Every structure is written in structure tokens, then in C-alpha cells.
């Protein structure tokens, strides 16, 4: 890789040993992927994937200490993924003991470390959906980013037109510290070309979470160009389309490893360049009703008792937008009223950023959810499910990401609503 004199000086240790090691890490990382140069991180803010003070990860805390002691901090303020704990989320004393005494034992001290290296806000800085307007970490088209959270990376690349590779934790922080990242993959025009064409031929709007899952499993880390979805989503990136694409993208990134997709007639690069974005020799995948049904039927059920009665429902992985929260409140309210019930039959948690929660509280919809027995939390459902006892619980969700990484069982929105309202065995 060609380094500028300034970058070479950092690598040679002229600004200290710790920064030199940060630089060496990023040079080796770039060399591995054929990067020829570093490019400036132009996004205003960073975002880190590692939000949890998982006690045994001493290497990370030691590394953070080394950075802080050497005065090596982020050049940009950053947000971080959601917190792993919230006392408002249903639990039991043994789970709490494991969570606090064995798992996230370093949460408080890790948050202090995050603040010392550049966390923007300990109040509102924790969410996977940092790009929501309420949170205020919304990159502009063409911005170069150093992020790692897979659902945020795929959203920033695809919906916002920013440029970011699908990095690992710590690499995200190192890019924000240096202010530049190796140029390869999704940072290049060539790397953003679609090597798959997806033709949507369904009879109705596909469930975002299942469509994303199908495409992710098929294309893995490649870039899909999706045709026919604009018939259902329209040609305007309004809030409804953005929410759909948020959930679609998270499913594609977790069921596969998609870092960028193009939606014909809708996402910024597809609108600008059209099918010129499709690389020569791109493969084709046709998705119809039968294919979506096949995909969904093949999700393994890893509950010990497949007919167990759900003990918890999570809605909001990735975090829900304000509009999604309000929509769920009304749908749930209507469904409970229709069923002649006052409260949900399955304890239900809806998750959203703290910044959204603050706006949501005080709305009529917040009162509805409270009256109907729903908890609204800023927690990361995935981190909650990492508790081994939670892993043994029958948890249901409409998140394909949560299904992929944990024992939670996936249901489409309407199915999930029905289960939450009526309860009973699966």
C-alpha cells in the first residue's frame, strides 16, 4: 500500500508506539484486501459495534486502556450499538445474576472508556440505528465511514449512499482514530457494482425480513441489484420505504453478509446509474411467492420443545423507528380490541433508541402500549439473548437477525401479532 509521508511517519512510530500499532493494524488489514491507499474518513461521526462490557474480553479493555493512556482517541465523535441490559425488560433473578455477575461485568467501566475515546453521548448514543434523524448520526451520500455494525453498514451504503466496508469491531474505532481507512471493496466504484440481479415476481409486497433473508443466503457477501421491488415500495425514499429497507437490509446482512444492495428506481445509486450498476456476467435469482415460502419453511426451530408456549416476544432488531413504534401500537391495540383482550398474552418488548423513546413517551401511542402491557426499551435483544438462560427460553420475534444469531423463533409480523394477542403453545 502507498502511504503518504504523514501516514508513514505514524507507522514508523513518530507519534508514539500505540498509534503506530493502530496504523500497522490498518495497513495489514488493507494489504490483505489489496488496498493501494488510505482514504480520508469524511463522515461526520463514527459508530462502534462493541457496546457490551463482556467481562472476559480483557484484551479489549486492556487495549482501550492503552489507547487512553497514550492519548490516542477518536478524531470524530461516535455512537455505539445498544446497551445489553435494561432493568425494565422481563427477566428473573438467576438470569440477572448471570448477566451482571458473569457476563456484562465491565459494562460501567467500559462505558467510561468509550466516553474517554470519543462516545458522543452516554444518554442517547447507544443504538444500532444511529442513522435515525432523532439520533443524529446520518451520513451523507458519498461519505466515507469507518463503521462495523452490519445493519448500520448496509443501511448507510444502500439507502444513504455512503461508503463503508463491512468491518469488524475495533477496526471501526481504529479508522475513527486515524481519520482514514484502507480503500478497498465497498469504498471503490468497482466494488459497488452488482454481481447478482434479483427479480422480484411475488404477487404482493414481500415481507422485508424474509426477502432480505432469501437474498442474503443466496448472494452472501456479494452486491445484489433488486428489480421489481419499487412496484411495492414506490419510487420515493419516504419513511415507510426506509423502514422497510432497514429491516430488509439487516436480514440480508445477518442471513448472509450483504454490505450493499441496490433497489431499482429507489436507492440513490440505482436511481442515478440504473442498470449500469450491474457487472458483466452477473448471476440472476428469481424470487416468487413459492421461493419465499421455501425459505421460511427451512428456518430451523432450535427450541427443545417446538410446541412450547412463548415466554417473551422481541420486536425491534434492528431498533424500531418512531413511525414503526406508533404503527405497532395501533396494530396491537386494534388486534387486542378485536380479540376482546386488555393486555398482551405474551410479555412483549419493543426496542428503539433512547432518543426515539424520549420523543415517543408522551404520545398517545406510548399510553396505548403501556396500557396493553408492552415494554418499550433501548436494550439490544441480541445481547439479552446471549444469556445462556435466555437462550433456553422460548422467545419469538419478527427479526430475522435475531433468529439467525440466537434461539429466538421467527414469525412474520401478522403471525407474531396473533401470537402476542392470543398466547398459547406454538
Amino acid at each position: 500500500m502507498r502511504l503518504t509521508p504523514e501516514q508513514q511517519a505514524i507507522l514508523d512510530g513518530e507519534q508514539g508506539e500505540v498509534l503506530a500499532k493502530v496504523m500497522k493494524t490498518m495497513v495489514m488489514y488493507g494489504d490483505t484486501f489489496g488496498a493501494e491507499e488510505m482514504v480520508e474518513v469524511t463522515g461526520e461521526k463514527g459508530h462502534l459495534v462493541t457496546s457490551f462490557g463482556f467481562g472476559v474480553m480483557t484484551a479489549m479493555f486492556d487495549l482501550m486502556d492503552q489507547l487512553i493512556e497514550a492519548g490516542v482517541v477518536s478524531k470524530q465523535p461516535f455512537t455505539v450499538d445498544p446497551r445489553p441490559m435494561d432493568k425494565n425488560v422481563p427477566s428473573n433473578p438467576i438470569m440477572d445474576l448471570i448477566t451482571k455477575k458473569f457476563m456484562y461485568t465491565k459494562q460501567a467501566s467500559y462505558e467510561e472508556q468509550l466516553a474517554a475515546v470519543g462516545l458522543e453521548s452516554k444518554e442517547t448514543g447507544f443504538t444500532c440505528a444511529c442513522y435515525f434523524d432523532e439520533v443524529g448520526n446520518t451520513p451523507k451520500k458519498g461519505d466515507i465511514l469507518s463503521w462495523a455494525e452490519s445493519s448500520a453498514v448496509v443501511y448507510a451504503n444502500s439507502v444513504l449512499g455512503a461508503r463503508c466496508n463491512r468491518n469488524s469491531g475495533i477496526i471501526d474505532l481504529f479508522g475513527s482514530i486515524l481519520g482514514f481507512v484502507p480503500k478497498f471493496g465497498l469504498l471503490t466504484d468497482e466494488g459497488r457494482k452488482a454481481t447478482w440481479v434479483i427479480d422480484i415476481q411475488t404477487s404482493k409486497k414481500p415481507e422485508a425480513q424474509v426477502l432480505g433473508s432469501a437474498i442474503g443466503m443466496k448472494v452472501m457477501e456479494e452486491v445484489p441489484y433488486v428489480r421489481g421491488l419499487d412496484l411495492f415500495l414506490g419510487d420515493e425514499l419516504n419513511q415507510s420505504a426506509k423502514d422497510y429497507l432497514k429491516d430488509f437490509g439487516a436480514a440480508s446482512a445477518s442471513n448472509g453478509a450483504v454490505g450493499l444492495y441496490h433497489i431499482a428506481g429507489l436507492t440513490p445509486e440505482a436511481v442515478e446509474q440504473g442498470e449500469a450498476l450491474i457487472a458483466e456476467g452477473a448471476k440472476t435469482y428469481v424470487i416468487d411467492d413459492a421461493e419465499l415460502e421455501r425459505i421460511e419453511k427451512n428456518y430451523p426451530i432450535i427450541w427443545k420443545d417446538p410446541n412450547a408456549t412463548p415466554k417473551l416476544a422481541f420486536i425491534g432488531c434492528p431498533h424500531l423507528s418512531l413511525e414503526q413504534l406508533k404503527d405497532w401500537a395501533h396494530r396491537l391495540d386494534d388486534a387486542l380490541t378485536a380479540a376482546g383482550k386488555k393486555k398482551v398474552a405474551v410479555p412483549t418488548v419493543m426496542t428503539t433508541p433512547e432518543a426515539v423513546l424520549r420523543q415517543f413517551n408522551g404520545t398517545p401511542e406510548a399510553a396505548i402500549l403501556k396500557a396493553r402491557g408492552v415494554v418499550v426499551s433501548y436494550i439490544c435483544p441480541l445481547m439479552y439473548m446471549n444469556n445462556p438462560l435466555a437462550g433456553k427460553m422460548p422467545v419469538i420475534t419478527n427479526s430475522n437477525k435475531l433468529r439467525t444469531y440466537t434461539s429466538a423463533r421467527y414469525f412474520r409480523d401478522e403471525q407474531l401479532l396473533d401470537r402476542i394477542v392470543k398466547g398459547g403453545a406454538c
Partner: protein
Amino acid sequence: MAKVFKGRPVVPGKATAKALVSHGGFNTLASYQKSLLFGDKTAKCSDQNNPDLYGQPMVGTALCLPQTIGSTTGGLVLFSATAMGRQPACLLFSEPIDSLAAAGAILSEVWTDASMPTVDSLGAEFLDYVQTGMTVTVDEDGTVTVE
């Protein structure tokens, strides 16, 4: 009879170890989660979705795999495992390495004293040939000998 494969050294180094073979993608977080949480020094794989590896100790093995999959905390998890001395002896990828595994291998190389040579692009034939329990030797130039 020994069979030789040539890959690209991502983190050059030498190692000899018994192979542990995953034919599916290796989910780093799911594989290491329980051993990190409960102090299992042999690092038995805790990924129930990986029938090749589930329950098998990973420490000190020549971990043979196509790529890693799963959470983008993967690199951090591998780095943490290495710092605790619970890493494989080497990582051998049949495919070009993915960004999460690369981060884990490089962070381990730069920020710990442990050695975990990492070679990628060994080809599909490598994973077809190597079997768990075979002896694998890695050289600095990315040559991998299986016997």
C-alpha cells in the same frame, strides 16, 4: 502420504497441529461464546449450528474452514480468545479470507504476543482433502502440508 497446498499468508508463521475441519462457515461469536463465558480453557466449540465442530476443543488445533460468518464482533472475539491463550494454532481458509477473520488474525498478531499463522485461498480441494485429526504443517510462505 503427504499432500501439499499453497495459499496466501495473511499472517505469516510456522505451526504444526492436528486439523479441526469446519465445512460450513465458522461463526466466531457462537463458537467461542460459552468457552469465554465459563472459563473453558480448551475452548470447546459452542455453535450448535456447526455439526462439524460443536463440542470439539479448538485450542491448539489447525482450524480449517471456508470463511467466518456471523456477528461483526467476530474479529474482536477472536482477538480476545487469543489474548487469553485459547486460540487455534493456525487458521487455514479455503476461500479468500473475510474481513472479520482478517481483523481477528491481524489484531492478534499486532496486539498480542501469541502466534496464530493465518493462510487463505487454499482452494476448495484443501477442505475436501483435509480431515479432522490429520497432521497439518504451515510454513511462512503459505505452504500447507497435510498428512
